């Protein structure tokens, strides 16, 4: 697998998309951002990037942080660590019950939003992003392997 380092302009585009989608600033300093297909973006340390070039059979490196879609971007739970939230950031504060629902991948009523994409936060802990429909229901982008089992309360 070739890890293609994002060009400066590509990184700028991503930063702009993150700002538009979430009102948050992408932190890129000290890390390498790479594209891995299907719009997926991974982040790794500079040393790991250099190391990855030395080995055969590299399947991936670093962590998956974002996915660029047609008109917006989504962030993974780990991706949220790479943004600094501005006061106007699109963050929805969740109750414990909603945070559990969110991590089950279930829809969560968050109220009407001015934005299609939001970051979920529970007691300061960022839970990744969700798409919000016109009725104010958020659909968390939690991968299946990472969801809380349905019976958890």
């Amino acid at each position, binding site marked *: 697998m070739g890890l293609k380092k994002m060009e400066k302009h590509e990184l700028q585009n991503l930063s702009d998309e993150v700002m538009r989608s979430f009102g948050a600033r992408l932190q890129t300093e000290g890390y390498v951002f790479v594209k891995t297909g299907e719009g997926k973006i991974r982040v790794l*340390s500079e040393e790991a990037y250099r190391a990855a070039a*030395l080995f*055969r*059979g590299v399947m*991936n490196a670093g962590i998956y942080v974002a996915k660029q879609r047609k008109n917006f971007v989504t962030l993974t739970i780990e991706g949220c*660590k790479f943004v600094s939230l501005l006061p106007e950031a699109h963050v929805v504060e969740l109750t414990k019950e909603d945070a559990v629902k969110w*991590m089950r991948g279930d829809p969560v009523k968050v109220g009407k939003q001015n934005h299609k994409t939001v970051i979920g936060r529970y007691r300061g802990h960022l839970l990744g992003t969700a798409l919000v429909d016109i009725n104010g229901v958020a659909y968390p982008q939690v991968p299946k392997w*990472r969801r809380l089992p349905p019976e958890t309360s």
Partner: protein
Amino acid sequence: MSVQLSQDLRSFLEAIIPDTMDMLLEAYSKPLPDSFRVNTLKIDPENCLKLLQEEGLTVRKIPFTVDGFYAEPEGLLTVSLWHMLGYVYAQGPVSILVTELLDVEPGHWVLDLCAAPGSKTTHIAAKLCGEGVIVANDVSRTRIKALSSNMQRCGVVNGVLTLADGRRFGYRHREMFDRVMIDAPCTSLGIGSKDWSVLRNWTTHSSIRLSRLQTSLLFSGYMALKPGGVLIYSTCTFHPIENEAVVNNLLEKFEEAEVLPITLNGLEYDSGFDEWGGRIFSPEVRKTVRIWPFQSGAEGFYIAKIRKPG
């Protein structure tokens, strides 16, 4: 229902631990305790433990580890929000100890040769604190998915995941790593309480067959080690042919290799055997350790710590 042993296993245990076999069978009949470590790449232990206690978990330090904790009641930890966020990693107590014995420091280049599902890889990553590199290798495309997921959940930004035959890896990448972890595939007698079928089906031949693979992996891991570097060879099984004999093979091929003594904090253990089945091992092999489930109250392991001089 009681634990059933294959005839081969019964004969082997009667030979290796004639006086404590009953204790082993009793340990096999109990479930392993729920244990974990805090993923310090994402949260500091103090805050994490508070969150877990609020979830109704009672948390107790594992006395013979630096990073490990027991969690009660059973089954609650891995379905908690904090587990899914990657703040905690459920891992056996002795498995936690094995990684601690590798003495990883920030800035090291570390190879985990048989890395899936990633318990030790992610622990090593936490020890690196984001500085240096952890190369997590596995030969199985299926198992590597779990490895990748766990590295993601734990937020390992300095990890490189490779799919390669571990027996060749070290020959292709000689003297590149400060530390190498070889937690080799084995007959898993040390975690027999998880799956009793392992105990019903074990044969001496299965250990002999794996011993060849384990020897190749250890040679390869040693090749990957920088001069002055340290490796851990571990298995979660007991037969000397998968353990002492493998280390002895290394000492015969690489005469300069040093077996380092292992210091365990208050945990009972047995020293490695210096002979088995008529085969005499190097006296150095005595420095390796075998931890039985009735000594740890959890898994059984064999651990050897080896240094490449330089």
